[in-house]
């Protein structure tokens, strides 16, 4: 298993965004990436009463459909996602697992009645995907507002933070990565 992250579009997602996210993962975390073929719209996770998609169900679907030697599989979707207890989430990850999902739905400026801005969307998506990748390596939320692992409850939190780990989270990330590599190479 190589350190290659698979980015999987779930439903229709702009390919430019997917490529940009792949480049970000290479630049910020040093991972190779591959964009897989798209999964269909996640109708199986739709909750009619909430008009939203259950992120946990989508995540389960990703886990069930990953190949045996997947290093990390990150789903990217354009639908509005939630977890049952919360009104919405920007993303969801398996803590110390292999899969995560992010949603672009609430990252678009127009969701907040602002004019469309592709660069803002890209910046927010970059921070969200690195955040969820961090969770898959066992990182929990950081108290530093500027760290990418700071919990984003609101879009303002996402806008404030940087698209990189703070020095402490960076050390932890490297430590977890080494541990994962050791397990994968059997050393």
């Amino acid at each position, binding site marked *: 298993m190589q350190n290659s992250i698979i980015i999987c579009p779930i439903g229709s997602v702009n390919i430019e965004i997917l490529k940009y996210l792949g480049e970000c993962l290479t630049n910020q975390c040093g991972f190779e990436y591959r964009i897989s073929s798209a999964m269909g719209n996640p109708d199986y996770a739709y909750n009619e009463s909430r008009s939203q998609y259950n992120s946990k169900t989508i995540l389960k679907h990703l886990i069930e459909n990953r190949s045996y030697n997947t290093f990390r599989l990150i789903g990217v979707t354009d639908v509005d996602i939630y*977890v*049952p*207890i*919360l009104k*919405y989430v920007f993303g969801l990850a398996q803590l110390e697992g292999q899969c995560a999902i992010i949603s672009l739905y609430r990252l678009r400026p127009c969701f907040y009645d602002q004019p469309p801005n592709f660069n803002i969307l890209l910046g927010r998506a970059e921070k969200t995907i690195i955040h969820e990748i961090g*969770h898959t390596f066992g990182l*929990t939320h950081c108290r530093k507002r500027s760290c990418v692992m700071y*919990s984003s*409850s*609101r879009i303002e939190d996402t806008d404030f933070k940087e698209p990189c780990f703070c020095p402490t989270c960076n050390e932890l990330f490297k430590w977890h990565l080494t541990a994962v590599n050791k397990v994968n190479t059997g050393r």
Partner: protein
Amino acid sequence: MRTKPHILVVDDEVAIRESLKDWLLEDGYEVGLADSGENAVAMAKEKAWDVVLLDLKMPGMDGLATLKHLIKINPETEILMMTAYATVDTAIKAMKEGAFDYLVKPFDPDEIEILIKKIVAHRELVLENLLLRRQLAKKNEFDEIIGKSAVMQKIFELISLVAPTDSSVLITGESGTGKELIAKAVHANSNRCYGPFIAVNCGALPDSLIESELFGYEKGAFTGADHTRKGRFELADKGSIFLDEIGDISLKTQIDLLRVLQEKEFSRLGGQKLINTDVRVLAATNRDLQRAIVENKFREDLYYRLNVITIHVPPLRERLEDIPLLVDAFINKYCLEMNKKPVKISSIALKTLMNYDWPGNVRELENVIERALVIGRQNKILRADLPFAPNKLEIEDLPKSLKLMEKKHIEIILDANSWNISRAARDLEIDRQTLYNKIEKYKIEKTR
């Protein structure tokens, strides 16, 4: 609180439990899950949870019943109710039963994060407060009242007996015997120990001021009253008020005081509104109040209100055996304050202190020790550091024989120089060998 707060999620819906668990784990909390009220109660008996997220509507034991059990098992656990819109009324009822707050499902991610952080911060404050109060209560026990004499032991026993009651206490004794310390000990050992202890020296306040001091005043009540001010009775609410020199208050103030003690309410000077107060009164006097009653200077009804229990503090001259202990305590206290290494006291100086009759009592003794430590140049308090002229008893105590007088004098100088032979010989204006010979001759030995 532990670095990682432990949170128990109680909900019958697996999706809710799991999503909350994921969310909380990402925030670095330790999470436990219970699918029913019964299981939550069992888990609370096994382990103390810092926070419980508790669903209100569950089959079997519902949220309200579970809440009551959890509070009973560990009153320090903070409980956050989770509810649907339809059951908000019940959630409010739960808050009255002791829940910290409630959240309407589904939550805004912001809400839960802020609320949990608030609970964690609140718990840290509560626990810190508890710790400080315990330390304070311990410090205030009987630490400051020193005495091993039988009479002081009886006083300690009496304080332990009367402190937990809410009865008024009259503390009598000469000036300087430590009546305020007794009052503080009564307060510190009472159920009001976490409330304020407010001391008022009635003797130091002129009659024109005492009323406003005790009961406060409204803005404009008199010239210069440019703002409303709370009185000591209001400040002492839920605690104790210590009225020192109660025998010195005027007959008018006695009537006001009697009304507060009887009605448990009063109004501020210049005000109409009646203010309720829950105060325990501790009073002290060095006067003979019974005599003052006969002389019509003190109201008999007030006397009986104040004098439910009397604690009489004996003068120091009646407990001379406590002097060495008191001296040690004051030496330690002032050496610490002056940043000095604790010194000792020479046997002659101590004997002088024991022979004195202490009209100013413990306060006078304290002042004498403080003065001796300030002026003393040796690492021992000497007779010369004490502000008393040799009294008749001390002079009578001196040996008549010249040889014994010489022995005594050498002992004093050796003591003064902490048995440093060279320095003592220099003071005595003899050489070291001669001093050794005299120590040998008179069989002089080191004392304390």
